């Protein structure tokens, strides 16, 4: 027995009310529950609400285990990003950045009131602002697949606090600024690649 559009809407609202905020996660859960309820209706010859209720009583906890409330910190993404950093082309970029900083005194291009350290910080903050605009204004729906990538920005933020502390007046070493420039550039490339992949994925949802 196939569920009607109203039935589907009912399950969707139920999941939304259970705090399943990410559209991609909810869509998959919805299909799982709907298929199970359809089979239950057929096997036990009961109506939608009865089948839905008895299915959820038993399975709700297990189903909602797949829910994510915030992107937070994903170990998989971090490992994936580290693997990406170790690709030969990326290492080449890293080495080029190092050679560049070794030969060019970048601090000369910045003033005392706006140091190179501040510049890196501004880039980091801009990326965070871009993230909010992209999610809230451009996408409208929340997708876990893309939001989890931004967990990396939190890691960079803490690294920055540790290595490029604004209260510390010492000029950072060439190695430190290379590391940060490398991380930010790699992140931009990684992020662009992921957004490209995500866009093909998102198109399927329409």
């Amino acid at each position: 027995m196939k569920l009607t559009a109203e039935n589907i809407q009912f399950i969707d609202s139920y999941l939304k009310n259970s705090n399943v905020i990410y559209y991609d996660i909810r869509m998959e859960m919805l299909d799982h529950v709907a298929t199970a309820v359809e089979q239950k209706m057929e096997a036990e010859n009961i109506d939608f609400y009865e089948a839905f209720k008895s299915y959820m009583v038993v399975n709700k906890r297990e189903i909602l285990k797949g829910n994510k409330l915030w992107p937070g910190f994903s170990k998989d993404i971090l490992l994936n990003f580290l693997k990406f950093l170790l690709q030969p082309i990326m290492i080449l970029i890293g080495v080029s950045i190092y050679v560049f900083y070794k030969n060019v005194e970048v601090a000369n291009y910045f003033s005392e009131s706006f140091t190179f350290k501040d510049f890196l910080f501004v880039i980091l903050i801009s990326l965070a602002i871009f993230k909010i605009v992209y999610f809230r204004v451009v996408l409208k729906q929340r997708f876990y697949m893309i939001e989890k990538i931004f967990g990396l920005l939190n890691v960079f933020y803490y690294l920055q606090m540790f290595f490029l502390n604004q209260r510390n007046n010492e000029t950072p070493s060439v190695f430190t600024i290379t590391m940060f420039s490398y991380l930010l550039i790699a992140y931009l490339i990684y992020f662009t690649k992921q957004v490209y992949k995500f866009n093909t994925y998102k198109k399927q949802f329409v």
Partner: protein
Amino acid sequence: MKNSQLYKGSLNTIIMKLLEEQGRMYGYEITQKVKEITKGELNITEGALYPALHKLEADGLLDVEVEKVDNRLRKYYKLTEKGTTENVNRLAELEEFIKNIQTIVNPKLSY
């Protein structure tokens, strides 16, 4: 099977093996297929299945297709090229493991 700890380490291999045989499958279908093959002995829970599928997808071993089916969207999974190669390795590994366990559990039957 009551002790789900026993199959947890092989879950990814089970999923990949099924996908190799069936071409493409969606989440609910995988749980039902496993139940059917093992005559209800093995029950893959939703809480274990979906994280495993998402991890395999993030690792580039699975590809995703979304289709509209009966008023809703359905996410199908299938092996990527990398996944197909990896599947062969993992199956060999699992077979080796089963053989070793058999030797330990029932030494007389082993060779």
